[in-house]
């Protein structure tokens, strides 16, 4: 049986934050090159996954980028309501990362 690890288990940093008042950005940073490569090469991290996790449309995602030097990937998408506006619920966007934590990555260890 193939084992999986969650992104929470694999990542060193897994966070969300505003990227300006109109976008949210998710950063996932690893501390070992092999872990980073396993996640990157797994093909699990896709725009479709993000759409499913956050109930958003693909056109709302402005970036899903891996940055090899930083052993990290970043996902940026449109906020449902701009920061601090009426009806908005997370001014700094700092608590929007939880759905990513449970994403499962194939893991041999």
């Amino acid at each position, binding site marked *: 049986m193939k084992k999986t690890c969650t992104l929470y288990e694999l990542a060193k940093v897994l966070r969300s934050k505003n990227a300006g008042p109109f976008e949210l950005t998710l950063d996932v940073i690893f501390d070992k090159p092999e872990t980073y490569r396993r996640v990157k090469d797994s093909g699990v991290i896709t725009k479709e996954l993000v759409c499913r996790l956050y109930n958003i449309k693909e056109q709302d995602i402005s970036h899903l980028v891996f940055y090899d*030097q930083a052993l990290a990937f970043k996902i940026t998408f449109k906020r449902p309501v701009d920061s*601090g506006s009426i009806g908005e619920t997370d001014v700094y966007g700092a608590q929007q990362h939880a759905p990513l934590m449970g994403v499962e990555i194939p893991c041999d260890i």
Partner: protein
Amino acid sequence: MEELKVLSPCGILGYGYPGESFWKGIEKKPDLIAVDAGSTDAGPHKLGAGVGIVSRQAAKKDLLQMLVAGYELKIPVIIGSAGGSGARPHVEWTLGIIREIIEEHKLRFKTAVIWSDLDKQVIRESLKRGEVKPLGPVPELTEEALDKTIRVVFQMGHEPFIAALERGAQLVVAGRAYDPSVFAAYPIMLGFDPGLSYHLGKILECGAICAEPGSAKDCMMGYLRPDHFLVEPLNEKRKCLTTSVAAHTLYEKEHPYYLRGPGLELDLSACEYEQFSDNAVKVRGSKYIQAPEYCLKMEGAAQVAYRTLVIAGIRDPVMIQNIEEIKTEVVEQVASYFEEVPRSDYRIIFHLYGKNGVMGPLEPVKQVAHELGMVMEVVASTQELANAICASARSTMMHLGFKGRKATAGNLAFLYSPSDIVFGPVYKFTVYHLLKVNDPCALVKTDYLEL
């Protein structure tokens, strides 16, 4: 010049920094002390209301050491996005504190004050010429939105700083500025590579966040050299690691290695990060690209409503089961009671913690908790109306009958008495757009003072 040493005391002026780290940095004889004081992170309220992010006391405490050290070393001291939002009231607030310190400690500074407030008439004319465009997922700017906007600032680039430094200013207090420009201006003026200068600025503007452990409340030193730079924390407890420095470029930005600023693009895709010593990292390969058009980022806020809110808990499982219908019923009953008030004059919003209070429409989990924390807010055209609607909605919800209800004494556990909290004005970013200009300095106004 072979090396320029830049000292960044902290991530935001007034966040505080350990004196020990700062004076250790001063012993290394920096060529520049620079600090960023701004952010839009806390939403549109600070810009709209003309208030700061930090307390006056904290801003004074941080400025004092910077000014004393800068005066003694005879080096430039640069403050960007003064007062947080960098508009006139914020810059004046900062200047008031600086004057007080200068007087109390008998300092003297040739000072430049660079204002970045935008006359709305200038924007209206640019709008007509098609020189204003949205930045990211923002609606097009309209005259109507502009009319409602209280004040607009723009993020200046490094050019106005250079102009002020070239005229002999030792202390530069600037309105809203692109955070890295505050650090990049002086080295660019001296002929250092703009790509490295900006990348170093991007790291230093956050204080010691790029170190391990990271903190915005501690000092960082940058050593800029012709073909690379070093970053080094000034607190022994922290270390810069290749991954921590590389990963920092992700922080609060939309793209991990491609950054846009006034008149420039910064391409960090080919950067090399090398462990230079136990606690310092060497960076090379940062590329500065001149943007095809010079655009300034504008920020403007308007007051859009007044708010009153109530905090209450819900524990009755039948009520929790029926919560969506109850919300609708409360809104309907209030509207029918206040039939003379147009529905467009107010909104009742329920934040249900334990359901989707934090993530709203982004929440993928459908399971609801056994108790709900509720913040019911009413936003309305006047404070009086917000208060009236909130009181009515609160009592309606308290006593509403619903399917299966057996707890007929009341539906809500109020946290406080009185239960209704008058919040005051609510703001919105109405302007978050790019403005095309021909001259990077055309819209700034600089005053030169002998302080």
